[in-house]
């Protein structure tokens, strides 16, 4: 395998990690429509931990290996429309991901508090936090941006 093959493999592998993380989060968020007990929330977000690992590996890997590829290959350049679009989408996904973290951290903390206090009963407060338009909306936008990133990487507009 040439260096180009390795870089492309690692870039695509990282993209799969990033995509998989967002699918895991979406799955947990859709599943959360059925939750009302603190224990359900705590348990559900444990599943999302694999997403936390994947999103870090994926975000760093796509950027590092993507930039390396663009630097190494003469055919690609940072002035190409599809590379500029990809970088903008990458940063937008990162910023919204940080926003999503901030929205869901209090939900997880509150669920753990209620569970530790032995109050494992239906909690309207948790339900409201989980179904808030901000929480659901941010993750929906992240998914759409990831879809656009994938379209950009495959169709390479302007190349």
């Amino acid at each position, binding site marked *: *395998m040439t260096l*180009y*093959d390795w870089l*492309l*493999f690692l870039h*695509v*592998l990282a*993209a*799969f990690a990033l*995509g*998989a*993380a*967002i*699918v*895991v989060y*979406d*799955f*947990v968020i859709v*599943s959360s429509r059925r939750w009302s007990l603190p*224990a*359900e929330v705590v*348990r*559900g977000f*444990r*599943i999302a*931990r*694999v*997403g936390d690992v*994947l999103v870090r590996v994926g975000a760093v890997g796509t950027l590092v290996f993507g930039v390396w590829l663009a630097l190494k*290959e003469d*055919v690609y350049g940072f002035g190409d429309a599809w590379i500029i679009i990809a970088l903008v989408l990458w940063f937008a996904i990162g910023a919204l991901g940080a926003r999503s973290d901030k929205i869901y951290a209090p939900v997880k903390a509150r669920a753990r508090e209620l569970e530790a206090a032995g109050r494992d009963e239906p909690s309207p407060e948790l339900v409201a936090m989980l179904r808030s338009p901000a929480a659901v909306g941010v993750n929906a936008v992240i998914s759409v941006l990831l*879809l656009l990133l*994938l*379209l950009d990487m*495959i*169709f*390479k507009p302007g*190349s």
Partner: protein
Amino acid sequence: MLAAIRPDSWNVPVFLHVLGAMLLVGGLAAAFSAQVLAWRRSDSGDTVALARTAFRALLFVVLPAWFLMRVGAERALARESLGSADLTWVDIGYITADGSGILLLVAIVLAGIGARRLARDGGGARLAQAATVLSAIVIVALLLTVWAMTAKPT
């Protein structure tokens, strides 16, 4: 490398193929995570809920994603006239896609029966664990496929 820039008519099936593969990996990551957590929990309520969640991820995310990935692959091969070509990376793709499809079907059945029996009488843990092992095997096979699809060994 020039193969990375394709005519637009080829891009739609490639997009569907890659989208399906990403959904497949993500669904498997969610299912595998729930399965491993279920395996490690001592509380029976937790174990049942996690086993059910894993089953739902396999049935409602992984299975449709596998079909999207597979149909996209077939259409991409037809567009690129590679269906009858003797290429190692295409062969690897066929073997891992079809093999993982069979393993996933078995995993879904085992996860479903396992979750049902866990809820009914606390049995079925072995079935759920077998589904976990199958999910892990499919994840490894998909990693190998990502390598084959990018490095394209001949």
